[in-house]
């Protein structure tokens, strides 16, 4: 299959915009991406739109703001992995030769309150199952097993909020201390408020095209989408929808498709829905050895100034988490960093290889990883 060139990117601010409809938020991000790509809406041949919360035909609602061109609109939903799912579909469309120019995007307008969305099973009705309690128990278990300390988890939140404060599109611009994280409102022991990402409104979009089209719009080197891996679960006894196996398996597939390994990466945007997730994903994505996740925050490796910056954008924790938009927003960050357009949070060294990862659906039902290459 051919590679897909990332011709343009666009992203709204993330936050709370109850006065703006989701399709206007989405269309704004698309217009930014079209302008960035230097093409017109009528040049786009197919559209892949991820959304979780806003009902039917969300892609067509966005399309209706831009002018009816009759292109196929594919709406996808994969919870937090929705963005990568749209990228997966858009990548397949270009890489297979089916279309030369496509739009992949995610848009979300979310209800206020705790990150929810678990299916209404008996266990959720009686309160025995929720994303918040699942992650609180994950933290409790990790502390018991001495895998991570509560301080290391809090350090993830401090780091990502610090990065977010340098990003004009972030929902939060908070300079937190470890004590701030520890003493924020208790949600479910030992999970306090700042260990969890917010819910958000926002959109992100990218124009993907063939190399032939890209050459008409500019000179190489191009920034390429070098593959998107998307997987559902394999069987794991006792831990349905745990993120561990699925992330390891998806990462292996993503690295193979891109022909690189984790040691080659210059930047990573990963699914920090909760602070502990980032530490677990360090290990699952192979950024360090098993059991060494905590060391990467202890020694500053994953800071903007470190050897391998992780969530330079501010991550879900700081930048915000409009569910289906997050995966595409991660791609936007990697591209901005590769182009040297990341402003105050620009990473000093040259960025050539990046990865954008999200888990979705009780966090372990889906996993998507997009590989980005300059």
């Amino acid at each position, binding site marked *: 299959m051919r590679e897909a060139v990332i011709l343009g990117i666009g992203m709204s601010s993330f936050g709370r915009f109850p006065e703006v409809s989701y399709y206007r938020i989405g269309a704004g991000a698309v217009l930014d991406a079209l302008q960035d790509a230097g093409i017109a809406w009528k040049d786009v041949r197919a559209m892949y739109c991820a959304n979780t919360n806003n009902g039917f035909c969300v892609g067509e609602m966005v399309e209706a703001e831009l002018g009816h061109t009759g292109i196929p609109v594919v709406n996808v939903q994969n919870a937090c992995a929705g963005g990568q799912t749209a990228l997966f579909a858009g990548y397949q469309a270009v890489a297979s030769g089916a279309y030369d120019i496509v739009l992949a995007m995610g848009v979300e307008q979310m*209800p206020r*309150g*705790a990150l*929810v969305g*678990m299916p*209404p099973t*008996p*266990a*959720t*009705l*009686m*309160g*025995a*199952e*929720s994303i*918040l*309690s*699942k992650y*609180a*128990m*994950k933290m*409790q*278990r990790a502390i*018991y097993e001495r895998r991570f300390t509560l301080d290391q988890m809090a350090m993830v939140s401090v780091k990502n909020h610090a990065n977010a404060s340098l990003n004009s599109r972030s929902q939060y611009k908070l300079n937190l201390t470890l004590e701030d994280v520890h003493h924020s409102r*208790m*949600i*479910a*022991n*030992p*999970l306090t408020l700042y260990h969890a990402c917010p819910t958000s409104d926002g959109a992100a979009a990218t124009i993907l095209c063939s190399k032939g089209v890209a050459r008409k719009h500019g000179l190489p080197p191009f920034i390429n989408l070098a593959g998107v891996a998307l997987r559902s679960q394999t*069987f794991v*006894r*006792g*831990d*349905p929808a745990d993120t561990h196996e699925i992330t390891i398996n998806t990462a292996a597939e993503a690295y193979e498709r891109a022909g690189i390994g984790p040691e080659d990466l210059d930047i990573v945007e990963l699914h920090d829905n909760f602070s502990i997730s980032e530490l677990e994903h360090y290990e699952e994505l192979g950024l360090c050895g098993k059991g060494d996740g905590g060391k990467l925050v202890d020694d500053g490796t994953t800071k903007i100034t470190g050897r391998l910056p992780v969530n330079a954008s501010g991550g879900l924790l700081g930048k915000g988490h409009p569910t289906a938009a997050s995966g595409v927003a991660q791609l936007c960050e990697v591209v901005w960093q590769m182009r040297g357009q990341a402003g105050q949070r620009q990473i000093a060294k040259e960025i050539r290889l990046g990865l954008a990862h999200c888990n979705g659906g009780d966090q372990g039902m889906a996993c998507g990883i997009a590989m980005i290459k300059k």
Partner: protein
Amino acid sequence: MQVPIAEGLIAMPLSPAEEPRLIGSKCRSCGEVSFPSRLRCRRCSGSDLEKVGLSRKGRLHSFTTVLVKLPGARVDPPYLVGVVELPEGERIRTLLAGADQESLRIGQEMELAVCVVYKDESEKEVLGWKFRPADDGDPA
């Protein structure tokens, strides 16, 4: 009046000598046990499944006290939830009873209690499951 939270999840005793159990499915091909039961085996996709009553005792894998009201949940905070690992290998997400955040220890033995977990819209008492610290060390 009491109603089960869903059909096919809880086996109520038919005689005083029996005790309530959660119902899962067991694969006759690979032996894997699932709760709740599935149409096909989660592990091998085998179709030869039997309904089985699950062990009443297991080990506490993790726990927390939920302090916020969760949309969709019919119970009001604060309440204790946990994950109990049964000898069959399946882990049950459950409410906890007869304990508090300070007294619980990961790894301790817990025992099933079928009890009212909330009242529905028509004030019927809904029967669900909780686990509480086991009284003794008897095998399940």
